[in-house]
């Protein structure tokens, strides 16, 4: 079975997690144009590669970031959003 490392709870089966979509920076909603906002809401970097993604541990309610290769499905590392600066 495929395992994922929850930053708080450790290694758990991937069935206990929910995919939250790609991690994307949000433009300031008050000042950006309609087009920039539509681009943020809808457009994606759809190509394969190592992506930063939001994931949620269903059993404990932890939201965290995972870096995963969307071609090979290899999960490189996971960390809480607060710890992102340390991993850049």
């Amino acid at each position, binding site marked *: 079975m495929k395992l994922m490392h929850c930053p708080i709870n450790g290694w758990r089966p991937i069935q206990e997690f929910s995919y939250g979509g790609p991690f994307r920076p949000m433009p300031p909603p008050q000042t950006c144009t309609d087009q920039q906002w539509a681009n943020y809401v*809808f*457009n994606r*970097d*759809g*190509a394969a590669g190592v992506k930063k993604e939001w994931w949620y541990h269903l059993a404990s309610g932890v939201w965290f970031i995972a870096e995963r290769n969307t071609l090979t499905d290899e999960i490189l590392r996971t960390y809480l959003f607060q710890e992102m600066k340390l991993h850049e």
Partner: protein
Amino acid sequence: MPYQLLRFAFNKQYPENRMFRCPDQLKAHYDAVIIGAGGHGLATAYYLARDHNISNVAVLEKNYIGSGGTGRNTAIIRSNYLTAEGIRFYDESVRLFQDLSTDLDLNLFYSQRGHFTLAHSDATLRTMRWRAEVNKHLGVKSELVSPEIIQEFCPHLDLNCNGHMPVLGALFHPPGAIARHDAVAWGYGRAASQRGVEIHQQTEVIGIKLKSGGVIGIQTTRGEIETPKVLSAVAGYTPKIMQMVNIPTPLEIHPLQACVTEPLKPWLDPIIVSANFHLYVSQSSRGELVMGAALDPYALHSPRSTLDFVEGLAGHLLELFPFLSDVKVLRQWGGLADMTPDFSPIMGKTPIDGFYIDAGWGTWGFKATPVCGKTMAYTLANDDPHPLIVPFSLSRFEKYELVGEKGAASVGH
């Protein structure tokens, strides 16, 4: 004795039948190039040659024809959608499918079976009623039926579903049909090839040449081509092609899995879909049960399949048909589904002159093969989107004019 058979192997009077010609080399110039020789790409090439007299066309395929979604789907054809735009579009496709075997002179094993979308809750039943009424309003045969009717058409179904989610009714769509999906690709490919279209397999597109905001050519692993018109019809690989022309799309690629059982004597006439269990099953002309369920939960560019999927599907299937507990799953596989935010396709022109897109087919592409070919051929020939596909333009997202079909394109509830 085998020597007598060898006579026929080398006999010029009885040559081996090829589905389509395989030209050795790419020409220097084509009037149009289609990237992707799946059902959609080949159908577009066919209609371009047949209806618009444009036969100097090359269809480029990285792998073998129909190796993508066309060869991996669960082959269900229907038009019981939710929006007026969707219904009109898919209805045209259902009509085209009815005579397609004759048109293409190839047995597509097209079989009209009747399609039931089972509702196991009040909310789901309401959605089915909504779809039935919109369908009827637009001239498509669909109606809400009671559990008794479902049992008549499908005696083996356990309406009680093991007690916890009994079937309350269903959306019945008589035109629902199945076909042999590979044959659709071969049929369109052969017919296009007979009309002069060139199909080039093992030919990957590595670049698209632009000049002054318009297409002038293509770079492939087998050489360069000059052409004024390019259609990208590569479904799960669309983001890769769009990166070559710097056009962003809302596509997210997820695997979609399917499986088949060992062949059984014919017992399942209609196509059964359970909205609440999120599964669909039909019995093919080979006797195998062809089944699928929900999209894989996370983005991945790999057609791998998992135990998770087949376990979940089997668990729910046995609630509908408990007697299948002894039946073996023969084979499971996956494909890449290019998902859009509104579960409707992306078809038509792009901001680049001469560059056209046919994508965003997610889990709903096979049934649209004929109408897609016809409308995209019109669009390429006239440099103007066909009326049926205007609502599906790429620009609809920035205008917030989405065509929401999640309820009916995917399994809806």
